[in-house]
């Protein structure tokens, strides 16, 4: 049995993968595409928070919201000007996949040019450690877990009890029928892309004080949230949450026993899941 720190670390990772995967699945259920650039929005969110705190002196909780708004707006622009044109009828899946993959390089290059390649740290935000009898947790990690809970509850309320949420659910279920009832599916797509990217950005910014900040931090969360989605089932929001939790805990527990080969085991697991049960744990509908 691994020690408690391993489980705590796994839980922190799960929170991040969960938030990222939730945004990705939300985008997938409306737009029908996988947003491969999701990890770069995570990275941009971390940079926005870094500069909001160090350059402008804005307190941490407010700069979290700022990074969500800024990067969410950027994601909405990407949807409006690139994805919408490449998902028009006559275009296949291939073109929009290629475009979002190319945007990875675009955003990493832009971040490297503007912010520089050297590692940056934010460790002075929320210093200190909570000492329990047998082990200790840093306040920052507790903040990650609480923040993720808040985000998930907020998303639950938005999706289930507001008009926008109703429109999103309707457009996800049956876009044609939804547009007959006066819902602009195009506008819903922009909103959903904005929300998804804002979630990624906030995940990145809450993690910025735990890890370092550089232009390439988005790569690993992107791949892992992709794996979380596959475990939970592509297209299912519950699946994204459960997949994120399973993946984070598995990653940290397997790594305790076989160190670097844990990623290898996880990739193998995902390939087997895709071959045997492509609908994942929650068997969501596949378009």
């Amino acid at each position, binding site marked *: 049995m691994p020690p408690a720190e391993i489980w705590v670390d796994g839980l922190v990772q799960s929170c991040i993968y969960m938030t990222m995967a939730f945004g990705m699945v939300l985008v997938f259920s409306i737009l029908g595409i*996988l947003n491969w650039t999701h990890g770069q929005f995570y990275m941009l969110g971390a940079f926005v928070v870094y500069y909001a705190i160090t350059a402008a002196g804005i307190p941490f909780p407010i700069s979290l919201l700022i990074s969500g708004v800024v990067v969410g707006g950027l994601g909405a622009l990407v949807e409006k000007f*690139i994805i919408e*044109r*490449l998902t028009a*009828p*006559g*275009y*296949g*899946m*291939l*073109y929009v*996949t*290629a*475009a979002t*993959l*190319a*945007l*990875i*390089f*675009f*955003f*990493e*290059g*832009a*971040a*490297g*040019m503007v912010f*520089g*390649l050297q590692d940056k740290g934010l460790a002075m935000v929320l210093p200190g450690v909570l000492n329990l009898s047998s082990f200790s947790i840093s306040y920052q990690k507790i903040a990650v877990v609480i923040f993720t809970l808040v985000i998930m509850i907020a998303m639950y309320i938005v999706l289930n009890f507001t008009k926008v949420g109703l429109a999103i659910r309707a457009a996800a279920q049956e876009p044609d029928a939804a547009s007959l009832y006066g819902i602009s599916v195009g506008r819903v797509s922009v909103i959903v892309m904005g929300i998804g990217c804002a979630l990624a950005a906030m995940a990145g910014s809450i993690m910025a004080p735990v890890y370092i900040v550089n*232009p390439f931090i988005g*790569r690993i969360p992107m*791949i892992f949230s*992709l*794996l979380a989605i*596959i475990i939970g089932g*592509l297209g299912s929001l519950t699946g994204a949450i459960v997949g994120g939790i399973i993946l984070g805990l598995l990653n940290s527990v397997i790594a305790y026993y076989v160190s*670097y*080969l844990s*990623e*290898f085991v996880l*990739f*193998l697991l*995902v*390939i087997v899941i*895709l*071959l045997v049960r*492509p609908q994942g744990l929650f068997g969501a509908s596949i378009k």
Partner: protein
Amino acid sequence: MIPYLDYKTLLPRTAAGFLAALLVIFPVFTTNVITLSIFISSGIWAIAVMGFTLVLRTGQFSLGQAAFMALGGYTSAILTANLGMPFWPSFLLAGIVSGIIALIIGLVVLRVGGIYFSIITLALCEMVRLLAQQMEGITHGVRGLIPPPPPPIVLGSFEINFSTSIVPYYYFMILLVAVTSLVFWQIGRSRLGGTFSSMAANQILAEHQGIHLMKYRVIAFTVAGVFTGFAGAYYAHFLSIITPLMLGLWESIQIMMMSIVGGISSIVGGALVGSLVLYTLGIYLSRLPIYNIQYLLFGAVVVIVLLFLPKGTGLIDLWGKFWRKVFREPDEYEIPEEVEAAVE
């Protein structure tokens, strides 16, 4: 839906022959190491890009092409550097091993389509990298292997020495690219190529015409695997190093970007143009004092090509349009808009 371009509309035979001749006598004008190595590297990438485009034509978006380059490179490097085998048999074995692995993986994995195939190949790519990193005893981990240069070829009194000059590498690249282009070109012209382009045009229709999709996907994946393996082996010997971080997921994405920029409507031409343009651009941009500008421009170029060239057909189609407009050749292969709409 991938548009299909006929080679006749791109370049007349005389011009193509002239270009090829120019490439062959190119080292007469300059033996500058940097210029020649740009050509050599973009030729190597072009081979991998051709493989990617061929797999794409069967409707599968592979993100694992760099993994086959790594497999080829590691096979050749392990055989020559660790086991002391001569260069030529291990070079051949690199392609064969990569092809066999592609065949086995393809038989299992190609039955899932669309986004799932991309994710599986992504996972395979990362698994190859992790294995190369972890099997310290064989691959020397992240420090990598150092394969020796090819041995000198003695032709009577004349000796072709790979270790003193870069020109033999250049000619070997020309040979490799020529053979690969010829094979892919012939595949494109043959009945097999017709099948591939019908699958590219409309998979469901092709399946209902009695085309066994799985069989042709496996053929395309294996052919791509063999030649990508050769490219990887040559890459390792040319740079005389191979490390796990050299050929990973991001290089796969780079292959995809070269394919898109060059144009997926033509397997050989698009690959050659795309890899030459992007690789040269990358080399010259990375000399500028602005860090990372090449990545920014790579991404921007791909998105611009996708947005503004019709259906992302890339530079080769742009050239084809220009050529047809200038010389007013009748466009026999254009399908009327309403027929295209009816097919969809």
